[in-house]
């Protein structure tokens, strides 16, 4: 008989009005990397919260066996003691503390009456070396990139006794090189007998990394298969329960030869006067999807937050909208000019999580639901209902706080909020980060509809297939400059990556503005 590190049998979990998990079975063999796939809202997080004791024993039905032994976790502490560690998407590190302090926070080394700092730093260095992370243990965590922080979090878990490591979307914010370190780390752990549960929307990673895959859909287990028996398409089909004709529903559409946005010699400086964007020029046409590719940190978000009037530092250069010069100093100016900016960090910059769906949706377009300067509640609800229906939003009620919704639905609300303003230029910053395949597909469809109506879309994306799949034209940025431009037909992963990593403009580059 096979030995299972973990078996979850007949798990059923109810929330008021919703059955989140319905008789789910989840078995993980010892020492394997087991991917858990499913759309947002399929029940992955709930299942992991049950496993880690966030939902204590007694609040769900079913049983959990670790190494064949029945366990009943009443708290997170108990699951940790049993050797289960979860790395969440939202990091749990103390930014003001050093790497070493974070690594051993709550560790026995820190519990002695007098802390031996030399020993802690030496120990930390040993761990970092072992993983192959080139980080000084005395750096403050807040000074590291998100990707490095994520790796620190994993190392932190390893410093404790860990048999089962759960990673929830670990690579969502990682750069290519950090992803590589992570992949090596996981392979290394597997050879040491650590069992790993890997939750990810990036199926490419799942295919190259996992030994087995379990797929959840609507709170039910659909299948558990060894990776050899699966293809990416099969996983997608099982996740969404239907065939996706194509991943990127790009439809050829007419692009009008009117420059809706023209940026000339644009430079941006941060608050300390450091130049983050260097002399950038580009234009966007009516009905065009312009992709912005590049590595994280290339300055794409800074460029567009600055164009939108939300960046704190200075800027120079000319911005023309519909051929007319503009002077955008604050987001309100940008909104007046017909710009909309959907941020990459929707929880931080896009939504007021405690507010309900209606109020979030109408926040930028309140004047459209006001009569004589007074908010017309009925009109407000009606407008929200109309737009969210177009977005195919799934929510318990329009009065639900947006914080309770899944990432995909939250993103649809951010989109609704901006579309209510009828923007001429829609800037989408990583529009599909951390959301599931089905919702991604719907967002692409919405983009298609918008360009057909003549909206110009700028899509910043770090995922090459997405940029190549949806854009009419692609600009590549590296270290604050535009380093390449490709028409849809010309773009290949290789030449985009070459420009993104700062290589010289490739031969294929055409200047076409």
């Amino acid at each position, binding site marked *: 008989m096979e030995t299972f590190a973990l078996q979850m049998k007949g798990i059923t979990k109810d929330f*008021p*009005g919703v059955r989140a998990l319905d008789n789910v079975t989840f078995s993980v063999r010892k020492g394997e990397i087991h991917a858990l796939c499913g759309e947002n809202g399929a029940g992955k997080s709930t299942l992991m919260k049950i496993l880690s004791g966030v939902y204590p024993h007694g609040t769900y039905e079913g049983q959990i066996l670790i190494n064949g032994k029945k366990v009943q976790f009443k708290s997170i502490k108990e699951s940790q003691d049993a050797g289960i560690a979860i790395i969440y998407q939202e990091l749990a590190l103390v930014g003001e503390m050093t790497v070493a302090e974070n690594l051993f926070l709550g560790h026995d080394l820190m519990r002695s009456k007098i802390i031996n700092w030399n020993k802690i730093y030496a120990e930390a260095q040993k761990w970092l070396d072992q993983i192959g992370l080139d980080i000084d243990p005395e750096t403050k965590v807040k000074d590291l990139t998100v990707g490095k922080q994520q790796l620190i979090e994993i190392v932190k878990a390893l410093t404790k006794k860990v048999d089962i490591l759960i990673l929830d979307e670990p690579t969502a914010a990682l750069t290519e090189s950090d992803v590589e370190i992570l992949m090596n780390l996981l392979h290394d752990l597997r050879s040491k007998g650590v069992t790993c549960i890997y939750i990810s929307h990036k199926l490419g990673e799942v295919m190259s990394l996992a030994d087995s895959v379990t797929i959840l859909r*609507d709170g039910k287990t659909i299948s558990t298969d060894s990776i050899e028996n699966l293809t990416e398409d099969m996983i997608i089909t099982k996740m969404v329960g*239907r065939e996706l004709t194509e991943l990127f529903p790009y439809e050829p559409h007419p692009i009008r030869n009117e420059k809706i946005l023209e940026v000339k010699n644009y430079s941006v400086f941060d608050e300390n006067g450091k130049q983050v964007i260097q002399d950038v020029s580009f234009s966007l046409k009516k009905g065009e999807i312009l992709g912005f590719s590049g590595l994280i940190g290339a300055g794409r978000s800074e460029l567009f*937050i600055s164009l*939108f009037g*939300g960046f704190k530092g200075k800027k120079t250069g000319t911005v023309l909208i519909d051929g007319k010069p503009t002077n955008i100093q*604050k*987001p*309100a100016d*940008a*909104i007046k000019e017909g710009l909309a*900016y959907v*941020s990459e960090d929707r929880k*931080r*910059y*896009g*939504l*007021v*999580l*405690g*507010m309900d769906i209606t*109020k979030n949706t109408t*926040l*930028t377009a*309140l*004047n459209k639901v*006001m009569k004589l*300067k*007074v*908010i017309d*509640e*009925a*009109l407000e*609800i*009606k407008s929200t*209902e109309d737009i*969210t*229906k177009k977005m*195919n*939003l*799934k*929510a*318990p*009620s*329009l*009065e*639900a706080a947006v914080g309770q919704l899944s990432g995909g639905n939250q993103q649809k609300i951010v989109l609704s*909020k901006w579309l209510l303003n009828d923007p001429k230029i829609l800037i989408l910053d990583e529009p599909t980060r951390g959301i599931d395949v*089905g919702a991604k597909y719907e967002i692409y469809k919405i983009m298609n509809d918008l360009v057909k109506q003549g909206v110009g879309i700028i899509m910043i994306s770090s995922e090459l297939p997405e940029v190549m799949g949806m854009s009419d034209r692609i600009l590549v940025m590296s270290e604050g400059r535009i380093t390449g431009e490709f028409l849809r037909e010309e773009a290949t992963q290789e030449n985009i990556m070459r420009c993104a990593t700062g290589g010289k403009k490739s031969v294929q580059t055409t200047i076409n503005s």
Partner: protein
Amino acid sequence: MSRQLSTVNVNEQRNKGISFKLDLQSYTLMIALVLIAVIFSIFTGGEYLSSRNLSNLFTQMSVIAVLAVGMTLVIVAGHIDLSVGSLVGLTGGIAAILQVWHGWSTFSVVFAAIIIGAILGLWQGWWVAYRAVPAFIVTLGGMLVFRGILIGLSKGQTIAPMSESFKQIGNSYLPYVPGYILALVSIVILVFWTIRNRSKRMNMGLMIPAATVDYGKVAVYSIFILLITYMLNRYYGIPVPFLIVALLSIIFIFISNKTAFGRYIYAIGGNQEAAALSGINIKRNILWVFIIMGGLSGVAGVLLTSRLNAATVNAGNMYELDAIAACVIGGTSLMGGKGKIFGALIGALIMASIDNGMSIMNIETFWQYIVKGLILIIAVWIDISSKK
């Protein structure tokens, strides 16, 4: 296809559960209030619920209630104002100085007190919004500065007496007949407003609560209004300070629910960064919140000086804490983004009830502090644990 499920369908299925839950939360406050009333009635042999005492109670709560209305806006916006007690003292003191020492008319001194309050609010709001100094620090400074100015201006003296008309503001009553007329008018408005709202939602094809629920609410409110009016009319009538509180509450409940300014305050307090990127002018809105708080402190200062018929250097001492406590008991979150003016009013009533009830029972003052402190902690604990 199951994923085509529209929001409306889901709405209908789940709305019941959600609205019930929301109601339950606002009911806890009511239940607490009723409980306190029952306890005090028993211990005071019914004296607590007598017409005379209700009249006193509503008058006593008025100063804190006015402050609590403004404080709700400040806290919802994610800030705090520790200076309002001193500002009440200062504006009330200035009103007294202008009238007693310089012979200004009642109308002018009331106007002056409110304007000076608003200007000092503007001063503090400028530091908070445009100079990014934390409100806690700015208003802690204001608390000292304003008290200092008051002591300096009044030369440490008690300033009295006020003119007859000024005294009327805090000590007079709406006579019997106008009181009932006012009650009836507000009931008619309530009914009319409910009908209009229902028909409007119906025209837009939106869901409307069952008629029994809506009109049941109207009936309960109407009975409550009539009962209060009846009780107060059995004494001298509706106290004018209570009318002022009611009027200000209606205005600010309207502002917070129905205007862009109100909505923006909740958005700023809920997530300032998202609000900024949504095109909301954070600084100007915060500035206005402090101006309003200052103006309301002026109103409270006038009420206090009028009720006491004098201005003292200690007037309004610690009122900021009572106002903050009223908001918090009423469900306002100190994290910002969440809170209701109506809740703060009930909170103010609860705080006033404790003072009032314990006074009738002849319990020593120190107990009032202890009990109020404990109730504050328990109220927040209930709020936090009900969310889990």
